């Protein structure tokens, strides 16, 4: 009962956020000087005729009062209609549908790899080795200081240009996915690893770990039966945020590796100011982010019953 109420309230909260994002973008656009009709016809340089502009205004409903335009846009949104791309003259929803899988597979894979890497780092450091701790600390600085594009460039130089092992461009094959995934996963693993390492070490020094040892439990038993769950909890909580940062990183990574996907679509749309596409990708990203956050919070509540009751 309580769980159901929690889910409903989270979904309602998510719907509110989506609505607010759409509204914010809509009105922000109306406050910026410039004629949307001109943008649709290729920007101020296109020198479109007055008739063409008027035609476009009628087609896109731009001659209507703002409030009517807003309500129309929101009404369409509810039915899943994200409008039409200015540049590509195709439905934004279809466009996103084509690209969604590419980006999701990239980000989810990167999240999984980052988790594995972070866990390995944390366990290594918790085994008392100074080296593991040092590598972990270095990874944290890497996570904070190395831009995706530079890491990607270094990886391409190393594994494509010099060693020739992996393609510099991420086309269909699984081999092409390796470098983009690594680029996204390594900095994230630095963040997650820091959190996991600290909570793992705390858990290994906690009274319940002493109780377990006094029962005759092995160090590995203490680590895997007890401490690892405590280390995973904060990292699970962070995974929603981590997924968001991966969506953001995908913009850069997809561009560097010339990989089709939402991020690259967004960048192209931003460059030519194809507003419906920008809005659409932003909304879909926000939706994905919200869903993942709800999912991770739900996992958190299952893994840690203390959360559900407090």
């Amino acid at each position, binding site marked *: 009962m309580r769980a159901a109420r929690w889910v409903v309230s989270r979904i309602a909260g998510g719907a509110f956020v989506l609505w607010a994002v759409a509204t914010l973008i809509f009105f922000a656009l109306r406050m910026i000087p410039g004629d949307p009709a001109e943008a649709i016809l290729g920007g101020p340089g296109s020198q479109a005729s007055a008739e063409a502009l008027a035609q476009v205004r009628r087609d896109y409903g731009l001659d209507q009062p703002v409030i009517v335009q807003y309500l129309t846009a929101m009404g369409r949104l509810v039915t899943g209609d994200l409008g039409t791309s200015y540049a590509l003259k195709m439905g934004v929803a279809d466009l996103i549908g084509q690209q969604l899988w590419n980006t999701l597979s990239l980000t989810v894979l990167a999240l999984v790899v980052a988790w594995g890497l972070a866990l390995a780092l944390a366990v290594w450091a918790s085994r008392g080795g100074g080296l593991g701790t040092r590598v972990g600390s270095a990874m944290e600085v890497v996570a904070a200081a190395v831009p995706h594009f530079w890491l990607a460039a270094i990886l391409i130089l190393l594994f494509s240009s010099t060693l020739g092992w992996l393609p510099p461009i991420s086309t269909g094959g699984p081999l092409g996915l390796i470098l983009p995934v690594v680029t996204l996963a390594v900095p994230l693993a630095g963040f997650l690893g820091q959190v996991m390492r600290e909570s793992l070490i705390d858990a290994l020094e906690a*009274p319940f770990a002493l*109780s377990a040892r006094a*029962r*005759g439990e092995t160090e590995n038993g203490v680590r895997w039966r007890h401490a690892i769950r405590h280390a995973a909890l904060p990292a699970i909580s962070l995974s929603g945020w981590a997924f968001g940062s991966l969506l953001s990183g995908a913009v850069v990574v997809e561009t560097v590796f010339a990989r089709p996907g939402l991020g690259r679509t967004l960048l192209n749309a931003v460059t030519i100011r194809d507003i419906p596409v920008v809005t659409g990708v932003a909304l879909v990203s926000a939706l994905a982010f919200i869903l993942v956050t709800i999912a991770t919070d739900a996992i958190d509540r299952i893994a840690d019953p203390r959360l559900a009751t407090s």
Partner: protein
Amino acid sequence: MNSISHPCTRLLDVRNLSVGFGRRGQQQTVVDRVSLHIQPGECLALVGESGSGKSVTARALLGLVGNRGTVSADRVDLDGHSLLGLSAGQWRHIRGRRIGLVLQDALVSLDPLRRIGLEIDDSLRLHTALSPVQRRERVLELLESVGMPEPRLRVEQRSGELSGGLRQRALIASAIALRPPLLIADEPTTALDVTVQAQILQLLAHLKQQGTAVLLISHDLAVVNRIADRVAVMRGGHIVEEGPTDAILNLPTHHYTRALIDAVPAGTPRGQLLVQERHNTPTAVPPPMPTKTGAPLLEAANLAKTFRRPDGSRFTAVDDVSFHVRSGQTLGLVGESGSGKTTVARLVLGLTQPDEGTVTLAGEAWSRQRERERRARRHLVGAIYQDPLSSFDPRHTVGQILRDAVGSGENGRSREAQVARLLDAVGLSSGIRDRRPLHLSGGQRQRVAIARAIAPSPALIICDEPVSALDVSVQAQVLDLLDELQKTLNIGYLFISHDLGVVQHMSDTVAVMQRGRIVETGPAEDVFRKPDHPYTRQLVAAAPRL
């Protein structure tokens, strides 16, 4: 020592055990040539204050002092087999099977993310070849044997879902799952309510009767008195005195043991100092404002307060509570955790508004007022908390804290003089002024808190568990200080504590709280000597005494 027991009957025999921490060369010795022995069915108590090395001794016996510690001994024999130089695998064979460990507070000593059944099952899984079904049966038996009600239900719960007493029982069940001949109990009842503590002690005594040897680690002489056959008093890593419990508690030979016993407030009459030598005489601070003649200083009438639980239901924290405090007198408010004591403190401090009832201060309304109206009379009421450190702004030094408390009414120089007087009054040197509370000892922090509380010359101080976190000797000094200040400054105290001994020693009048209600009230001597209410009787009976 002059023990009469023969080596052959000794279950545990330790000679000159030393434990040091830190790197070679700059090693710090925490346990220094400790010798002790226990027979089957005997309870030896290792008593000492924090930092005495008693817990490290216990961990050394389990081979669990950690990588940074080095252990040496002439002999550590368990049942005739040496525990010296065991490999990790051999130690695991000992732990749980030959020696069990019970720690303080099972909320954190049992894995909060795992069901307690699984925690107990672990011991069986590690040391026996029983099938999962057999183990489950055994877990249920164990829970039953430690007095856990509804074991089938409890086995599925986690430590956070159980009450303090029940989860401590679960922890004990996990420690005795393999019937180890030696059980080490490290502060097993600390943080438990007195009635629950009595039950857990009874459980340990029962195990002892069945032949288990118990090494009890405790700071509390009264607890030790309940169950221990022999006592070893530890200080600074040494055992300073050891012998039968009666002899040690009644005829201590070492001065430290005597000081420890004297410091226990229970049984020491009201007004008598606990520490013999006085460190200083507090100098007089301006006397508090006289109250309107006749009216008590503080009067609480029919206070009630309910709170909303996270799930929306309401629970009554304070229910129809009335009492009064007179100038220069102490009302002791005693009760177990969750009885509503702290809510009463907050109501009296004007930090929470009562749902019903009123608080009157010096004859004038205090509750049900706007904070703005109350502020002018805030100086009449001070507060001292259980955890003084968190009540100080971490950015401020002792000097800043006290200057702030003295208030802006004074000019710079007289403020400084006032701070110096306050420090003197609570027995702190003026050199402490530039230090932060973080770098002070627990006793010093509480003295600073007291100095802050008396700075505005209050007529009343609310003391909420002011000595619960302190070692007994420091507790005695702080209680003495509060006593002296009351005499010189004629302050009224509302003294809140779970510790019957402390309340008895400090109070003129006592009110006993249970589930939000005051069930009994009266002169301290009467209430403790001839308790009326069944709950009070239960409390008094449960309270361990020297």
